[in-house]
């Protein structure tokens, strides 16, 4: 008895059913990331409440902000009891916050121009993809910026530049035989040019001259940027020398470097600034009169050089010994092996650390306000808060300073992380 059974065969696949609602989209994400356990749920609620409290305080303050009054009394009159920020202090004192209160107001274009040029001239250093010819701008920039910001005749920075160019040419010619010979000859040539040039600059003091601005008139955020860039760029070469000295086989040189580095790292920057302010003058030849900004630049440079030296020492120590031995076995002498083999690799490793030190240094430039220089913080604590118009405005001013520093420092640290990814040549 056979029965004909018609087998049912489905010819088309079933359409896939959607995943359960709890396993997809927003719900799943919320469940995994915000409410995975009771404890996590409590944390989430607390965090949301915290954010709400901050926004509830902050948004009305921003929204009701007053931007165009000329004193705190007027601002309160406009606010009329509402919660709001008197941001008009920023617009009214904008130039003071950025340039300080003594820089001649018809010359503001000079620091502004040098700031834009700074961005252009730093670009080829930061981004290696840009044409290398742009490094020429970078080389000229320090002299140009000096002329723009401090003013005076163009002869002085020109002679400075000439000295470096002459020294470099001599070095190129002489370094074929020996590094040391080239180095000393170049130094001599540069000094000679500067010495001869000093006779030239006095009689020609009106040759293509901008209005001269003395150092003590620098202030505001401009002063922070000047101190930051000058000190970082001077302290990197000094830091390299110190790091090499600390790694050296020569005990005397090593001890000198170790004592210097440990001494500087052991004391707070503020004591070094006190030294620049009141003590350094005692150690200079009688009659010399360095201005404060130069003394501060010297001390901050020494300070950050010690920190950079430690970073580079880390980079040097991270190189395998094989690199040193390979350089030696090629017959390179100390200067050549350092210049061609060791330093390029060690510096590459230490770039993130150097950038960290640079960010720290830039933040530390606010400390000059304590020795009564009028940088951004000094301007806020001094002339602006002391003025009758704006006495009592803390949040807007300090918040503004915080935002400015945050933008610069966060930008630099993001750049450093990007660079770290670019430089990672090991494939992991």
């Amino acid at each position, binding site marked *: 008895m056979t029965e004909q059974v018609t087998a049912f065969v489905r010819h088309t696949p079933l359409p896939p059913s959607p995943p359960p609602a709890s396993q997809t989209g927003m719900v799943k994400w919320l469940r995994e990331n915000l409410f995975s356990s009771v404890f996590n749920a409590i*944390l989430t609620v607390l965090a949301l409440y915290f954010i709400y409290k901050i926004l509830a305080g902050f948004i009305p303050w921003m929204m009701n902000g007053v931007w165009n009054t000329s004193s705190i009394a007027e601002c309160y009159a406009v606010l009329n009891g509402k919660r709001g920020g008197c941001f008009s202090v920023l617009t009214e004192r904008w130039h003071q916050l950025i340039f300080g209160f003594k820089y001649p107001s018809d010359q503001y274009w000079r620091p502004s121009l040098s700031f834009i040029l700074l961005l252009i001239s730093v670009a080829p250093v930061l981004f290696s993809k840009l044409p290398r010819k742009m490094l020429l701008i970078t080389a000229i920039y320090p002299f140009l910026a000096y002329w723009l910001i401090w003013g005076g005749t163009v002869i002085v920075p020109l002679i400075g530049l000439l000295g470096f160019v002459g020294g470099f040419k001599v070095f190129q010619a002489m370094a074929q035989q020996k590094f040391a010979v080239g180095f000393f000859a170049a130094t001599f040539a540069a000094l000679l040019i500067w010495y001869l040039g000093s006779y030239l600059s006095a009689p020609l003091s009106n040759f293509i001259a901008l209005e001269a601005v003395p150092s003590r008139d620098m202030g505001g955020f401009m002063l922070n940027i000047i101190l930051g860039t000058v000190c970082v760029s001077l302290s990197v070469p000094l830091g390299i020398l110190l790091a090499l000295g600390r790694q050296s086989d020569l005990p005397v040189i090593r001890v000198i470097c170790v004592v210097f580095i440990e001494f500087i790292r052991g004391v707070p920057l503020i004591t070094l600034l006190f030294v620049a302010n009141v003590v350094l003058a005692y150690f200079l*030849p009688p009659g010399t009169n360095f201005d404060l900004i130069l003394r501060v630049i010297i001390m901050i440079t020494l300070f950050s050089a010690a920190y950079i030296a430690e970073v580079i020492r880390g980079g040097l120590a991270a190189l395998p010994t094989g690199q040193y031995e390979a350089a030696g076995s090629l017959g390179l002498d100390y200067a050549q092996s350092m210049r061609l083999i060791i330093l390029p690799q060690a510096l590459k490793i230490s770039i993130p650390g150097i950038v960290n030190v640079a960010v720290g240094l830039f933040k530390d430039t606010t400390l000059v306000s304590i020795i009564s220089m009028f940088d951004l913080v000094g301007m806020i604590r001094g002339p602006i808060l002391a003025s009758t118009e704006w006495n009592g405005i803390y949040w807007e001013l300090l918040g503004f300073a915080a935002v400015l520093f945050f933008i610069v420092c966060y930008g630099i640290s993001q750049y450093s992380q990007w660079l770290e990814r670019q430089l990672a040549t090991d494939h992991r």
Partner: protein
Amino acid sequence: MSLSAQADMSEFRLSMLINDKRYRSYTFQFLALMVLICLMAFLGWNLMQNLAAAGLNISYSFLGEPAGYDINQRLIEYNSQSTHWRASVVGVLNTLLVAVLGCLMATLFGVIAGVLRLSNNWIVAKIMAVYVEIFRNIPVLIWILIINALFLAALPQPRAFRGDNPEATMLFDAFAFTGRGIYMPKPVMYEGGWIVVAAFILSLIAIFVYRRYARKTLFDHGVVLPVLWPSLAILFVPTLAMFFLLGSPIGLEYPALKGFNFKGGIWARGSLLSLWFALSIYTGAFIAENVRAGIQAVSKGQSEAAASLGLRPGRIMNLVILPQALRVIIPPLISNYLNLTKNSSLAIAVGYMDITGTLGGITLNQTGRAIETILLLMAFYLTISLGISAIMNVYNNSIKLKGR
């Protein structure tokens, strides 16, 4: 060998000082030493000339003279008739006070933020990331000023506590949070009070010994002794027993509102609080990054291996993860402590009288002894830094991986 060496010695020429590798290093070192000595002599000569011209000398006798200024926040007896030396000691103690308190609180902030930044709760992790970035990228001086202004604005003045229906009330009738600082109860010792304190310290030592013993038993015999409850028992039972047996020999003096201000109790000044809080929350952001890096440095395989051995999560943390993570965390942690101590010199910005404020500030201005005071100031900070680095080196050597 010896022959050729002798031959070399006999053929010594002056040019070998530059060209021969054996002698060149001595030449360089000699030159460096000469340059250094000349520089020192130059600076010293200038110093003598300048001091002579100004009619000054180097002398520390000013330290014995009356200071003539007041310091409101102080840990030891001091008045305006005390010497400059005493003022400096007050400053040193104030620096150490804010540094120690700051390190403790910064560790707390840092550990919490570092652990929460790795949390699987998205919003909490993001908040912690924002905290770290905001505090790391804004100068500490600005933070100190902001937090000082925050304390002044957010907390009520003492007069707000007055009247029948005051705007502000004291917490537990013991703590008053005001814009001038925090008033809190002060322990007062009666007869026998020190015995209770001694008992407490002894029980702390006993807990430490017991925990070591429990650990040793675990490693030697594989027997797990309970730790938590015995520790708590040792901590509380003897001290409380002593306290009640001796008839409550330690009392509390509560702050009370007298006139326009609070009297009695301990008054922690607003400057100390804002500096303390600002330094610890700023340094906490750096410590958070160290803690995160330390935890991430322990590979996942370690915890998985421990779990596959049957260890419970608490034990995995205590016995496997933490010992390895701490090895990564501790060295940068110590250098952050040092940074905090050095940053405490910014106390001058909020008027907290630390060593930089007393010795490097008012004493310097009053006596005009710039070189002496700044040398003393640097010597103080150097001693702390070098001392802590020395301890750290010993510690690093004791925990570093022992190669076998």
